[in-house]
């Protein structure tokens, strides 16, 4: 299952026409202690670069953008009870939402793991 990364520090796992989206380990480290996550409603139509979710640390609220166009099929309900999952397992149990892909060609513009690693090394 290929994993892509955005310059906004989201990761996206693609399995056929469905993708799982979360924020990267680097992003959670920058944010610090996560105390609240607002995931999109099932059925929400997302467009690449648009607001998709909100993650709140002790100090601030941050927007999470949709990496590609598509429709939300599921938000991670576990984050409501345990937002700190985003700190402890950001690229696993701490996923934010799942979505269908409207245009798989949009994935071509994203980074792979190696490119993302180089990207954050330059920040």
């Amino acid at each position: 299952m290929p994993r892509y990364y955005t310059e906004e520090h989201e990761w996206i796992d693609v399995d056929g026409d469905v993708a799982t989206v979360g924020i990267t380990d680097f992003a959670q480290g920058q944010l610090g202690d996560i105390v609240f996550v607002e995931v999109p409603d099932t059925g929400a139509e997302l467009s690449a670069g648009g607001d998709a979710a909100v993650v709140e640390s002790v100090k601030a609220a941050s927007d999470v953008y949709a990496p590609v166009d598509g429709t939300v099929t599921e938000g991670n309900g576990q984050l409501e009870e345990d937002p700190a999952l985003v700190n402890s397992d950001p690229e696993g149990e701490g996923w934010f939402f799942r979505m269908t892909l409207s245009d798989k060609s949009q994935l071509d513009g994203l980074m792979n793991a190696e490119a993302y690693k180089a990207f954050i090394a330059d920040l």
Partner: protein
Amino acid sequence: MSETEQAGEEAVGTETLPLDSWHRAKGGRMVEFAGYWMPIQYEGIMAEHLWTRENAGLFDVSHMGQLAVSGDGAAEALEALVPGDISALKPGRMRYSLLLNEEGGILDDLMVTNEGDQLGIVVNGAVKWEDIGHLREYLPDDITLNHKDDHGLLALQGPKAVDALARLVPEAAGLLFMQYMRAAWNGHAIGISRSGYTGEDGFEISLPNEALAAFANALCAMDEVKPIGLGARDSLRLEAGLPLYGHDLDEEIDPVEGDLAFAISKRRREEGGFPGAARILGHLEGGAPRKRVGLLVDGKLPVREGAKLFDGNTEIGVVTSGGFAPSVGAPIAMGYVPRDHAVPGTAIAAEVRGKRVHCTVAAMPFIPHRYVRKQGG
């Protein structure tokens, strides 16, 4: 991903504090605050907050302005600008006061200490240059105002602060809350007060810039002391119900509205003679139209500065500080509401991203203060 509430722009001309490299070496994540690079956190705001409530946290607050006013009649001269009874302040005692404009609005909140030969004043970093300008303009010419910019300020806060500090300066343990003394450490003249802005017992220590790093190292070598950043300083003071100037207080707000009537001394209430006395005494007598209150927030969604407050469909006020409170384990906030809503237990709502969040007006502090007001107590 982008931060929506933190100012993200690169500050031009941001200055460094004497301990800048010390913070970086300790892993501090530096942000621009009040014109300086300052550590927002080291290991994490939550851990640092809880550490301070249980142990002792060391805060570098050298961005704050340390001023001194001296000359015959200095106390009386200062009383023309603040509503506190400065003349009655005994040597070695300090008190919280407010710099007021002609309308009674708050220009800054500050600490005034009778150091014996002068009045020490500590003001907020973000407005210290405005404060200095105001004092220079309004104090009589024969009163001397000195900016001690060759000194830094450290705050050691938490229940184990006294044990840690006493290993370096044993006599500091004899101070009570809001008392001050001069002392010596490693040949440096330092000033110590039992005070702070976390709600915990603790001390603020003024040292010459060249002594700061060695003193901070001596404290952080102790098991109970860790460096703590601005992030936890903010969450600690919020839980303690203490207002932050520029957020919870500003030039439009008077001391009664700001729930700081305790800072208007009895004699000053009787005599007046401070800026905005007519408005302030009127509010003391008949109540202010609005008041700063604490808010307990239902659920987990943080309610932050700028959130509008509602009673039904009517907008009634605004949140001035808010966030997740680590020791409470829930979001809390403070803000301004009309006086008929300023009663603990009143149910109101805050608006966050178009959603209504239920809040209850609450007495402050949210976490009881643990000041040491008598020995052995």
